[in-house]
């Protein structure tokens, strides 16, 4: 009776067309831990709808398009445009129920970074300290002699290729260890943290080159669990989700030993992601008035980030954001509005434009993990929206 032709499974869930539904049903595919919220929290925003579907910009194919055409063409599941505390535009694909948490992939890294900022403010971690101060087990691995800062800024020298489509390499072993792919040898199941400390170096210095290595962010999650003394999902709930006034529980995928996939496994609603974006826009202060993330941490993200390391890094990134920088798992666009963003594969975005007082959240199910043309068109769309709002 099951319609297997339509069924998303552990083997196909990140491939089109199955990803379209799977991205908001991740819990049915992978084990997860709940990030509790407070459903009685007051609504943080008011609706002030404006028709912005006519905003025009250069689409993925190089020809002009409008937001109204681009959203369905761009495999969008959800779009929220916030200005101040007003929701200007809210758009959902007809097959997406916005009550269902949607996977945000590497936006998870940016959220985890804010937890690191909170822990640093409490004196629980020192970003300049060696990572092994917190995780002695990392001795001898690539993480054995780097600092927390290297991990935050993705400048760890590590022998690992982020090749999303390679079925057999280290990246595939990584995906298996996180519980995201079927086990090739069920008798010898891997786990995330054993995998992390198996990674070695290439021999270049740490700190010089931006290298986008997802396991760094899983390592950060491990470190935060260690210093926070609780499962990461509970830390995120207690330090971010509840204080910022999130109303829907989020969740995060966990490996077979309960290790959370902080590099990419958070699933949340577009609404709560917009709330998170508003908090970042407002210097770490949530719409309910609570200072959730230390203002200094947010200012550091906006003002710092090694420009040279960015230019030394993967041309794919510097071509997406030629004026960019990367700091504590957030991207600075370097544009004149001072916009910065969190980005996840398959089209997940939090775009914050302080000059326009705007936050844009876009959740998507793009068929390819990385899609140069579509990713750039997304940035042009956000920029056009924010210019129209300013």
């Amino acid at each position, binding site marked *: *009776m099951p319609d297997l032709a339509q069924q998303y499974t552990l083997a196909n869930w990140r491939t089109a067309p199955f990803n379209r539904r799977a991205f908001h049903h991740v819990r049915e595919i992978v084990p997860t831990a709940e990030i509790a919220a407070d459903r009685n929290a007051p609504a943080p925003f008011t609706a002030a709808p404006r028709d912005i579907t006519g905003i025009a910009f250069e689409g993925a194919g190089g020809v002009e398009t409008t937001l109204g055409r681009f959203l369905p063409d761009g495999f969008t599941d959800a779009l929220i445009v916030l200005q101040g505390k007003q929701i200007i535009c809210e758009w959902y694909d007809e097959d997406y129920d916005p009550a269902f948490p949607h996977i945000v992939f590497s936006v998870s890294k940016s959220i985890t970074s804010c937890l690191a900022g909170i822990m640093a403010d409490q004196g629980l971690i020192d970003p300049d300290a060696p990572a092994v101060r917190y995780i002695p087990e990392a001795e001898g691995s690539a993480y054995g002699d780097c600092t927390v800062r290297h991990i935050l800024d993705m400048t760890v020298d590590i022998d690992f290729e982020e090749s999303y489509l390679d079925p057999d390499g280290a990246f595939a072993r990584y995906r298996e260890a996180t519980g995201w792919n079927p086990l090739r040898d069920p008798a010898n199941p891997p786990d995330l943290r054993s995998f992390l400390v198996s990674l070695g170096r290439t021999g270049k210095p740490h700190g010089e080159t931006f290298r986008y290595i997802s396991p760094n962010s899983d390592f950060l999650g491990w470190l935060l669990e260690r210093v926070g003394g609780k499962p990461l999902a509970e830390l995120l709930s207690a330090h971010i989700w509840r204080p910022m006034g999130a109303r829907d529980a989020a969740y995060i995928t966990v490996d077979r*030993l309960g290790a959370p996939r902080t590099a990419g496994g958070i699933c949340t609603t577009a609404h709560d992601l917009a709330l998170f974006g508003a908090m970042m826009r407002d210097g770490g202060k949530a719409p309910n008035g609570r200072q959730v993330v230390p203002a200094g941490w947010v200012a550091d993200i906006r003002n710092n980030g090694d420009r040279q390391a960015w230019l030394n890094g993967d041309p794919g990134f510097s071509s997406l954001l030629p004026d960019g920088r990367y700091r504590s798992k957030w991207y600075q666009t370097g544009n004149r509005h001072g916009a910065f963003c969190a980005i996840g594969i398959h089209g997940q975005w939090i775009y914050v434009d302080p000059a326009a007082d705007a936050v844009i959240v876009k959740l998507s199910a793009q068929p390819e993990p990385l899609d140069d043309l579509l990713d750039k068109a997304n940035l042009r769309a956000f920029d056009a929206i924010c210019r129209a709002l300013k």
Partner: protein
Amino acid sequence: MPDRTDKTAVKTAHDLGIMRGAPVPPTGRVPFQDWDRAPWNRWTFQHIREILPTTEVWRGSGPVWQLPGAPRNLDDLSFAADSGDETTIAQWLNDDFTDGFIVLHRGSIVFERYMNGMTERSLHLSQSMAKSVTGTVAGILVGQGLLDPDCPVTEYLPELKRTAWNGATLRHVLDMTSGVRYVEDYEALDSDMAITDMAAGWKPRRGRAPTCIWDQIMTLKTRERVHGASFEYKTIEADVLAYCMIRATGTGLAELFSRELWAPMGAEESACMTVDSTGYPLADAGFNATLRDYARFGLVHLNGGIGNGRRILPLEWVEDTRKGDPALFNAPYTDTLPNGAYRNTFWVEDHRRQAYMAIGVFGQFIYVDPEEELVAVKLSSWPEFLSPPRARTFLNAVHGIAARLGGTT
């Protein structure tokens, strides 16, 4: 190594170090093959979402059905354990691998206890109490005219003509009296039950086991007795029932449970269900909910189908459930319930009385007693799948509590 032999000392998941630490040291890691076994079940039954894929049974956005409190001290209430030894409620709860225990009398919470790390928000695995949740939603659909107990299951699922369920009615499935051969052996590695565990995604797959519950249903082609001849507890019949419900309504099971029961009942938290590789929520055992929401579910039954100020389940269904046929109920089930019966996915405690129960392996109980106006829920992580002495002790405890609350002791 966590202690797996000393069954007299009841330790918590925390004491045992199960899944504690970042990372969890090897001695605390739950082996997937044995996650439901002692001592691992002390942790896993409250953390199913973290080890298995699940789907949400949404509570809806309505107000919570508030349960008033009228606390009574029952800790020191003494009663006889099945061994004949006197014990107290507090001692028994501690000895019996309890995770949560709640008693409602005349609609008020009189006693509520969380143990072994469980909290008011923890979702606890129901095990086979899921069958009673499924059966309750079936009763609601019968009331809506969408299901007919007298209908052959092949009316809903024509594919079952190729299985041993050919000729069986929905009634046979509801009462587990079909003649289908299904070996409910929890320990054997090759029993039908072991295959269900693999098909459900609960256990690693071996050999050519089916990859989903539906495929296993389609393999069951041996009829070993006349349909309706006797009650034989067959886990997979709850799944046949669930597939009839899915087919009759054109709605997924989790959505159906939410729409017809969890949301109207005013559940405090959303529940969740484990899903197999095809996304099918495991109606026979995969349900997870909070202690209080299990109590609300019991209260709907106690109140003749009314909960949260509205009719949820037809009164006729509740009355029919109390009328199980003891003639169909034989050994080994009579070891625990000598005068029992099984009807509409519930266990009737004594056919001469009105109380009935949902029961799950490893010590899960929802006890509904209209004569005493009592609902009791016990969630546990016993070392044993089944334990007639522990089950009989549970019944003794509940009878003692009922007597105390009813003012007869």
